[in-house]
């Protein structure tokens, strides 16, 4: 099977961009990409979770292609809830490996500030089952709160133990020029912040922000000098939270990881550059346990020692423009391994990226390698 590479990346700063619409954000990362690669891609994939609900735009990929003035280029929108960005990467590498295209531009874009937060929150809750969860007033942070309580009870973790996560994420984001929340926080501030769904506070949760990130996926002949190989991707789905025996497990993440880990040679997982999904602090912790970085119930203790964990600040502090998030994870990793990012340079061989939707309703992983 032919190889697929990440040959270039671009990001916009995440924030409340009231002067920029979805097309402007797409233009910004595309213009950046044109400066880097000097030619058009031959396929465009747009990952956007909320484009239909927040910006009233169906088929955003065609509208983007029209706006960019790229006639005749095939385009497609990808939406798989919060994992849309990595799902788009997954599709791009299959297109490249199949030989159907040699340069696939993957753009993740989200406008999250066109309406007040209560409308965004209502739309975000639709990543759950509309008929059985949404209409009963169940929301993603409520589920995350139930998971966090169960984890604290089962493993004796304290509120301060969980706060290791946002403290590290905010410390990392200070050095990320694209991050939405570039300020440090203390454990005390996390505990005392406004309650979202107890025990989860505002500082355990991702902020609402707009953003766009772009990744160019190429075959070998179109590969740039500085490139990362996409070794493999893996994805899985899981039953709803209430059907699980143990809600402190991430079944989809574990299933995806089971199919991917044999490709990671013999290198130590704790030395791999890691990007994990942390819409809420507890999920970042569970993700570390699901891929075997730590034993069950002990991940809080290893957080401070993981130098290359969510170097941009994770969803928590970099931000989570939902459909774009997976591509921010990839773009940060590319810069970290090839150019230096957020004051760090990673000299190792592998990077693992984890993305999931809701309480792990689907999970997607990407394994990248220095070429």
């Amino acid at each position, binding site marked *: 099977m032919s190889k697929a590479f990440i040959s270039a990346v671009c990001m916009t700063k995440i924030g409340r961009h009231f002067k920029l619409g979805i097309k402007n954000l797409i233009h910004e990362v595309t213009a950046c990409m044109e400066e880097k690669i000097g030619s058009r891609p031959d396929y465009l994939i747009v990952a956007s979770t909320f484009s239909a609900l927040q910006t009233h735009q169906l088929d955003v990929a065609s509208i983007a292609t029209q706006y960019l003035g790229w006639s005749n280029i095939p385009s497609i929108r990808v939406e798989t809830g919060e994992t849309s960005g990595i799902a788009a990467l997954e599709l791009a590498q299959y297109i490249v490996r199949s030989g159907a295209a040699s340069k696939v531009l993957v753009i993740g874009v989200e406008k999250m500030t066109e309406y007040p937060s209560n409308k965004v929150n209502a739309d975000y809750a639709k990543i759950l089952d509309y008929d059985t969860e949404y*209409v009963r*007033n169940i929301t993603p942070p409520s589920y995350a*709160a139930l998971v966090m309580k169960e984890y604290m009870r089962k493993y004796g973790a304290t509120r301060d133990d969980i706060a290791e996560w946002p403290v590290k994420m905010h410390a990392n984001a200070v050095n990320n020029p694209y991050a939405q929340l570039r300020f440090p926080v203390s454990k005390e501030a996390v505990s005392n912040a406004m309650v*979202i769904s107890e025990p989860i506070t505002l500082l355990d949760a991702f902020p609402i922000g707009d953003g766009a990130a772009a990744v160019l996926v190429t075959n070998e002949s179109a590969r740039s000098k500085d490139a990362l190989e996409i070794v493999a991707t893996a994805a899985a789905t899981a039953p709803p939270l209430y059907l699980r025996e143990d*809600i402190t497990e991430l079944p989809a993440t574990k299933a995806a990881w089971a199919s991917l880990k044999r490709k990671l040679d013999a290198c130590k997982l704790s030395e791999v550059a890691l990007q994990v999904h942390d819409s809420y602090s507890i999920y970042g912790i569970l993700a570390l346990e699901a891929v075997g970085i730590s034993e069950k119930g002990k991940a809080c203790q290893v957080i401070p020692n993981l130098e290359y964990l969510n170097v941009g600040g994770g969803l928590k502090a970099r931000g989570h423009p939902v459909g774009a998030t997976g591509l921010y994870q990839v773009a940060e990793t590319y810069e970290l391994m090839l150019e230096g990012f957020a004051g760090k340079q990673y000299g190792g061989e592998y990077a693992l990226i984890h993305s999931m939707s809701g309480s792990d309703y689907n999970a997607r992983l990407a394994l990248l390698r220095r070429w």
Partner: protein
Amino acid sequence: MKHSISIFWRNRESHYRIKITKCNVCGKLAYFGRDRCPHCGSRDVTVIESEGKGTLVNFTVSYYRREGDEEHLPRIIGLVKLDEGITVPGEIVDIDPSEVKEGIRVEAVLRRYSSDDPYGLIYYGLKFIPILKK
């Protein structure tokens, strides 16, 4: 918040009664009436009805603001282990958030989910209330 009338009407049985899908192949139970077993994918299933009583095993007091939802905050969202043995998610009402605790006995009752105020429809469905000791 607005819901589709036809979606709500179609699902009325599962809003007004707790249905359980029993798989005739793997033997497992699952919340709400379904065409297939969510555990094994079998189409050989029987839908039964729960007595609607159970034990609260986990809960959170939520202040998360959803459009049209603000006046009902905070909400207590919990997981209830039904006497039939399966766990279902739901809202707990008729109890002060400071008094709710895991282990209390609860039962399902018909309450308002939401309404399209001021002139729209009112959507009813099941929530849980504490079972009062006699």
